[in-house]
């Protein structure tokens, strides 16, 4: 601050580290850390897959447990020659389509109902026992019912996805809408906002961080719903592939299906994360968020 105004003879002040030194050192530490983290990750992968490959080759029966090389083979086969039921891409597309449509319907319904109940304590009190009961219900079982109702096609899976996604989003939207700062609403009203404007410019943005954080979990549920729905009864999709692989004792096929679903989920996660950081630009960066982001 003020040391620039103090006139001291330069020779008497020893300099141990210049600004460049400090910057270079911290840059070096960061890049070294990043490299080590990646090396360790690759190491873990090699040890894990290598030991699996070895044990499955020499000790345990790969018919039941499969092994990485066989799973890889199966993947290559699926992507080059297609599955027994047509191209792998069309199977992925079926599952993603079900998950996305169901996710959209469930999330929109969850947000709308969550915000309405969050703003109306009366309605929330009336409906509370029903919502709690519906949430306690093991909803995944409904997939069986939906197959009977809607058949083997798209709609039964979408229905399963909707009931799973809805509750995940609903509870967060509800909490977010209920916890809006009273002051912000009063301030907007004084500034001339109508009820609708208060909802649009105060309640929704304020609930957005709650809603967005629920979308991460909700898309996971959407994929689970789609896969379980297909597993229960379908004519295509990744869940159907896995179910079929199980039926033919093709353990490598089960693993390969799992792997593809994982990759799809990671892509979706990345998309939602991008959306979140775009919509929440206004939020102060939280301390330690980089470590949390790495996990979440």
């Amino acid at each position, binding site marked *: 601050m003020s040391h620039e105004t103090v006139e001291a003879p330069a020779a008497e002040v020893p300099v141990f580290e210049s600004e460049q030194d400090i910057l270079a050192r911290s840059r070096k530490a960061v890049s070294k850390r990043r490299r080590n983290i990646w090396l360790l990750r690759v190491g873990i992968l090699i040890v894990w897959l290598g030991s699996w490959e070895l044990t499955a080759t020499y000790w345990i029966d790969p018919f039941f447990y499969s092994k990485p090389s066989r799973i890889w083979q199966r993947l290559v086969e699926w992507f080059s020659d297609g599955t027994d039921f047509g191209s792998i891409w069309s199977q992925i597309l079926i599952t993603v389509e079900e998950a996305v449509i169901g996710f959209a319907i469930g999330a929109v319904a969850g947000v709308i109902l969550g915000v309405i109940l969050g703003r109306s304590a009366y309605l929330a009190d009336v409906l509370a026992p029903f919502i709690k009961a519906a949430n306690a219900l093991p909803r995944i079982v409904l997939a069986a019912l939906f197959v009977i109702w809607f058949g083997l096609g798209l709609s039964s899976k979408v229905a399963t996805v909707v009931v799973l996604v809805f509750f995940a989003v609903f509870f967060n939207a509800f909490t977010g809408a209920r916890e809006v700062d009273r002051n912000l609403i009063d*301030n907007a009203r004084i500034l001339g906002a109508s009820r609708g404007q208060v909802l649009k410019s105060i309640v929704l943005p304020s609930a*957005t961080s709650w809603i967005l954080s629920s979308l991460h979990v909700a898309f996971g549920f959407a994929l689970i719903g789609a896969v379980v729905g297909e597993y229960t009864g379908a004519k295509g999709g990744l869940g159907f592939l896995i179910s079929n692989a199980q039926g033919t004792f093709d353990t490598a096929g089960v693993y390969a299906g799992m792997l593809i679903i994982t990759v799809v989920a990671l892509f979706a996660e990345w998309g939602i994360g991008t959306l979140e950081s775009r919509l929440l*630009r*206004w*939020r102060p960066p939280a301390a330690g968020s980089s470590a949390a982001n790495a996990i979440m």
Partner: protein
Amino acid sequence: MAPPLIELIGATKRFPSGSGSVHTAVRDLSMSVQPGEFVAVVGPTGCGKSTTLSLVSGLQPASAGRVRVNGEDVRSIPDGVGYMFQTDAVMPWRSVLENVASGPRFRGVDKAEARAQAMDWIERVGLGGFEKYYPHQLSGGMRKRVALAQTLVTSPKILLMDEPFSALDVQTRALMQDELLRLWSGSGAAVIFVTHDLDEAIALADKVVVMTASPATVKDVFEIPLERPRAVEELRLTEGFRSIYREIWESLRGEVDKAREKGVGNVA
């Protein structure tokens, strides 16, 4: 004399308190504010000063008595009222520009015009160049400036201020007080400024209303004959200021003591 702009006649406000009884925040309160007048309301902490403002703003209806603004009974938020809250009420998800423009936008002004008005006020409160920032990127004092611009852009005839500077450090507070006087002078707005800081009340106001301990009612009203324009920090050192301070403090002290005894009683 012109009819008062704001008039409270025997206004009382009761709340249901958590324990099943009824808490009286304001009792039989009568006061009036002329157009363009700066009135400061002082009283012990928690005595119901803020409730007075919510009655005038129409955010809460009175339980008894009358509250009139512009000669009409207050039933909803009256036209031309601005309100600055004690805590930050700027929208954290909107930039400074969008925050300040929100008042005109809510009132149906088109986007370009609202932004032009907002830019004008952002310059006037000294935040030029910060219009793209989000509130979390600003200091406490700067956020208060945003709130001030957000309120003033609607050109209110009545400005209600609820301890707006109480969370600021002493130097920033004095600076904001000067800014407030500068922006207020020439606006012709009537101000009700609630504070527990007697220094602040005297430095800013034409009239200081001393409230009693809870339930609040008017104890004394003091005219402040200090000349305008005022420079808050220098003003505090003048003999005139000190003698007014002593006079009002004599009145306020008894209520502060009462509030303290009550507080101790509640704790015990």
